[in-house]
């Protein structure tokens, strides 16, 4: 049981690191990575709550585990959407710079 407490504390560490990365990182992709670290940390706390709730023949309470599975898939969808926006933003900025430059050339 003490093993899971140590892992839970590691999860808390992940939360702190994830928050630091989310707030301090300028690069959007790096910030998204930090989001996933933060999410991972929070889900570890879920896992710890599950492990503590073991009983009735289960090694861990199934409800938090089900929630974490849903949470991981939501986190991935968010990452995919955010990354797509970041890529699209970079492309849009290039296009607008190109238009601005071409407009300047014509002007």
């Amino acid at each position, binding site marked *: 049981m003490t093993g899971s407490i140590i892992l839970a504390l590691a999860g808390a560490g992940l939360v702190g690191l994830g928050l630091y990365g*989310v707030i301090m990182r300028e690069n959007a992709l790096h910030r998204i990575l930090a989001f996933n670290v933060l999410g991972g940390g929070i889900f570890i*706390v879920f896992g710890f*709550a599950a492990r503590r709730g073991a009983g009735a023949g289960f090694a861990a309470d199934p409800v*938090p585990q089900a929630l974490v599975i849903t949470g991981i898939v*939501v986190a991935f969808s968010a990452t995919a959407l*955010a990354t797509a926006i970041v890529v699209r*933003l970079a492309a849009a900025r290039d296009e607008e710079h190109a238009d601005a430059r071409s407009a300047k050339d014509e002007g």
Partner: protein
Amino acid sequence: MTQDHASFLADGSGHLLLAGLPPGPLLALVIILPLAGLVPLLLAGPRVGEWAAMTLAGLGLAVATIIALQVWWSGTPAIYHLGGWRPPLGIALRADGVSSVLLVMSAAVFCGIGLFATTGRDRKTSFPPTYWMLSLCVASGLNLAFLAQDLFTLYVALELLTFAAVPLVCLEGKAAQLEAALTYLLFALLGSLLYLLGAVLIYAETGTLDIGLAGQRLAADSAMTGIALALMSAGLAAKAALFPLYLWLPPAHAGAPPAASALLSSLVIKAPIFLLLRIWLGLAPADLAERAAPVLAILGTGAILFCGLRALGQTRLKLLIAYSTAAQLGYVFLMLPLVKSSGPLTIPEALAWTGGFLHIVSHAFAKAAMFMAAGVIAEALGHDRIRALGGAAQAAPLSVAAFAIGGLSLMGLPPSGGFVAKVMLLTAAIQQGVPWIAVVVLAGGLLAGGYVLRVVVCALQRPEASATFVQISLRRQAMALVLAVAAIVLGFIPLEPMGFLLVGRP
């Protein structure tokens, strides 16, 4: 399989056939109905999709009204256990007075915005099927957020809302909008994760995620409850753009196309606000709520005064309205110190409760009308610089009227719904001896008056000779006027059914 028919008192006074319908399944229907629209929109052509979306919006309004009527007639909240499983194991849907009113509000405003979106003529103003898919998911997310009783289901509802709202911001694909959408998404994600962390701590302490059960089991004296509620509140405050966490709202709501910004500003922002109130007026133990209420009220005051001041100083019309949204959502949090979270309410507390939620509803109608009107004015004049709005009254008369009437409700001038809500909050504040809230409500009205009248005065001026206008069809301007008038009509609802908002108060 435990069978659970919602306890439904068939009122003996011979109501319509509707009384026969058990309310329970309708709660689930109102959530999944909009999702059914994804099929025609993905598979069939844009015309069929748009038509299907509008019929589903109409059906949604009908179902929401039936639910509201049944809750009103029976006087008890309609509860429905999904799959027949009772909490803490299963998920329960609960429609009490407030959530059924918000259901009807969001369905009505959604229909209004939908009709406005269909009037887009050419390619530039008409919307691709993706807009309809995203707005249907917004509707479904909203209904779930208003009805769900389970903290994790509310998390999924918030995510559904965020994933549908973010692409709405950058539908036009310009760099500035994409940047606003990215900031909105990342900040909303940060909020969701903090909310999730709070939810897991609540689960670890009480063993359930159901708001009702958790509320009973939460120990008021343990530090963990405080930290969990603080995390959830901070997460929801970030998603609700409460002062000082409003950085994403103005660029996102101002950058979106008119129908989308109306949807965002009037409906999407209401879900996290409603959840914050559900947590502090339903989940939190009484004395913790009493201690945290002033903090949220002070943040609300900051929102009203600071964002109102910033709205005054804006030069672009859409940014002004977006800042006004950030300001107006502060009013709701002024209600928290005036309402004790448990036990029967005294008259002033009932007034504050009704005033706060009436403000949410009237703000939704007024803000949707103002954003649609601003969109049409920007289309007519080609820009939305406030100083150069001269001639807007000739180019889009109905839109300027809609903006002014919506502004009336925002300022809290009679006979609008905003006025009734403002008077209720004022009366409650004065009767409970909390004068600073009364002063803030009045100052908010002054600031709102400032920025609404400034725009109206500029719009009424004569245009410069050189200005050229695009002719806008009356049909396109009508919808904004209809919603603005609805905000006014809210003021005429006689006071005693306001008790409806108190039905099923936790």
